Structures are given as C-alpha cells and as structure tokens.
C-alpha cells in the first residue's frame, strides 16, 4: 500500500506522517497523533462527533480523507487551551448539565464555538438549527442549547457597553 506523506499543523504544531490515502482525518488524529478527544460516531458525516476545526472552520474529520489534509491546519478539542470562548463554553456546559456520557461533547464544543463566533446575534431557534448536525443521545439537548445561549448572552452583555463606549 503506497502511503502519502502528509504535512499538517495540528494544534499549532507541525506534524509529518505517512498515511494511506483511504485513511481519514479522524483516524489520523486518533491513531497516529494520539489525539483521542475527537470521536467517531458514524463515519458517514452525519452525527457530528468527529467535528474538528479544519483550516479555521468546523469540518467532519471522518469524511476528510488523508490527501485533503496535506497542508491543512487542524485544531482539535485538545487545542483550545487558553481560548476564552472555549473556556466559557466549558464552564457553561457544566453549569447547564450539557453532557452525560461525554462522547458527543468534543464535536459539540467545536461546533458551539463556531456558532458563538459566527452568529453573535443568534436566538435559541437558530442555535438549535446550527446544532442540528451534532447528535447527542443522552441529554435531550436542553442543556447544550442553554449553555450556548448562556455564552452568547454573556458576550452580548459584554459587547453592549463596550460598543457604546466606542461609539
């Protein structure tokens, strides 16, 4: 089996590895780089458990095959230390009991962070729509939605006065 040389930046570190073209990013992260926080729940791109940040935006690592990763920048759940939005989400996820078995949680957090940053004005209905590609079988989603809303609300609260000061 011919293996491809793959160069990536993963969690701000340069990595080089040899991969079968048929292997997917989730398996490379988990198996080769031992970043097991990224989980696979379906390998069909449906459940969202494997969601990572790929070239700055959330993507399904289970249907991103090795070749497409050459030259890519990847951030996994292990790569958000020091990120204020992720820290706020983690705190909110605990406070709102937004996780039970924890399996969907890393993908859910990566998606939640994207929602918070991309859609600062999102209401609950929009948050639910944006989360709809990440399945959770334990919580019934109420805690997850509430956690994202909590972080959005707090940021809006902070942004309000700051914006008016700027004006």
């Amino acid at each position: 089996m011919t293996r491809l040389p793959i160069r990536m930046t993963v969690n701000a570190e340069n990595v080089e590895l040899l991969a079968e073209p048929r292997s997917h990013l989730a398996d490379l992260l988990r198996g080769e780089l031992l970043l097991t926080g990224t989980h696979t729940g379906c390998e069909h791109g449906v459940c969202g458990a494997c969601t990572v940040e790929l070239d700055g935006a959330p993507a399904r690592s289970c249907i991103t095959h090795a070749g497409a990763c050459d030259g890519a920048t990847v951030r996994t759940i292990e790569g958000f230390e020091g990120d204020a939005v992720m820290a706020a989400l983690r705190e909110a996820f605990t406070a709102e009991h937004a996780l039970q078995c924890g399996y969907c949680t890393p993908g859910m957090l990566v998606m939640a962070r994207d929602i918070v940053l991309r859609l600062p004005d999102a209401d609950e209905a929009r948050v639910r729509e944006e989360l709809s590609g990440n399945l959770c079988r334990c919580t019934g989603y109420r805690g997850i939605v509430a956690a994202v809303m909590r972080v959005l609300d707090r940021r809006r609260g902070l942004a309000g006065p700051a914006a008016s000061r700027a004006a």
Partner: protein
Amino acid sequence: MKPAPFTYSRPADWGAAVALLQSGARPVAGGQSIGPMLNLRVVQPDAVADLRHLPGFGGVALSGGLCRIGAGTTHAAIEDDAVPGRLGEILAGVARRIAYRPVRNRGTIGGSLAHADPAADWVAVLPAFRGSAVALGPGGERRIALADFVMGLMETALRPDEVLRAIELPTLPAETRWGHWKFCRKPGEFSKATACVLAVPGEVPRAVLAALDEAPLVISDASALLAAPEAEAARIANAVPGLSPWRAALARTALKRAAAMVLETA
C-alpha cells in the same frame, strides 16, 4: 467501515486534472457526498483526483450581467454572501439549508451538482436559472444549460473526461421573486420533495420540482402554477410517474408552497 484502497493525486492545473480523468480517476471536490460513499465501500475508485487546489476552482466573478461561480466555491461561502446582489441573496438562502455548517464548509456547488444526487439542493434549484455549467474537457470548454445538466440519478451531461469548472448564472434584478420549499423531517436530511419558482421581471417564470429519485422536472413556463397554485401543483405532481401517495403529496405541497412564497412577495 473504511474505504477500499485508492491512490490520491492533486492536479496542479486544469490540464492535469483532465488528464487524470482521462486515466479513469474519480474527481473529488469537497468530498462531502463521496466521503461517506467511500467509507461504506459503495464506490471503490482505484484513483481519486482532488480538484480543490486547482487555480480559480473557487471564487465568484461578475462580468457583463453574468455571475461566474467557481465550481469549488463552498456552500458556506455562498451562504456568507460570496455572490452579490439579488442572485446572491437567493443562493445564500438555499445554501444555508444544505446539510450542516461543517459540511457546507467543505462541500462545493460544483461538486454537488456533478454528483447529481436527485435530493441535493443545487441539483434541485439551479435548473430554474437561465444559466449554464462550464465543462472543461480535452477539447476545451463547453457550456451546458443548467436545465439539461442533470439527466438522472447520479447521471449528468458531463462526459467521463470532463471536469465541471464553473456555474454561470445571469445576475437578477432586485425585484426578482423567488420561492423555495423542501421537505426534510430534520435539517440535513435528504429532501423528499423540493420545489422552487423563479419569477424574474419581464421573463416567463420558471419552476423546478425535484428530489423525485430521478432528474429534476423543469417547468419552463410556471405561469399556470402562479395563477392556480393548488390545482396546477396537483396536476404536475400527479403526472410524475412512480411516486407513492405520500411522496406525491409532498411534491404537490412543495410546488404549492414555493409558488405561494412568490405570490406573497408580489
């Protein structure tokens, strides 16, 4: 499951891409449709050609009333207003409801169209526009009318050695009315019926009924549908062969509701 083995190459220019297709390689853009199929071993190509790094594969350009959307433009870019004007507004609304954002971040308009899944959004919507698909083959470029592009279940007018390079759509006046409705039980589910109606001022309105498990049905004059949505939607849907009663009801509803959206903005 993991895919069957394949080789991977990343053509640096369009000529190389066409050459790879000539040698039998399977073209891949965002990989969001073929990715799961590879993982399920439903498709087992020997070779994959990754088009994502071709020059000008993504991106939008306007010239002379024509908007050229690079085949590699992602759904997310279109959702985020990469296409200007009324046309962009309409396309952004369609893009936002494709699958999920992480899929939209990778999936491309050209990849989706060329994949030709009858339930896919661009397959359902683009035939409504008087535009064309720009195909590049060994003999150079040719244009295929969007209404004729998808010919059946995963079957297009592209020749095996042709690559889809861009979509060209006429820009639209601000007064253009648009209706688009699809039936998904949950976001991201494959549509069970999609309809859209495009009413450009001064032109005959057009409509498409899609997600019928085969090629989309293009209604090149939708005036009757806009005049009598209920009856005409039923007539069109009932004429589609092989639909179960429920799917026929969905098709009817899709047409009726898409028409209503146009009429509401009248």
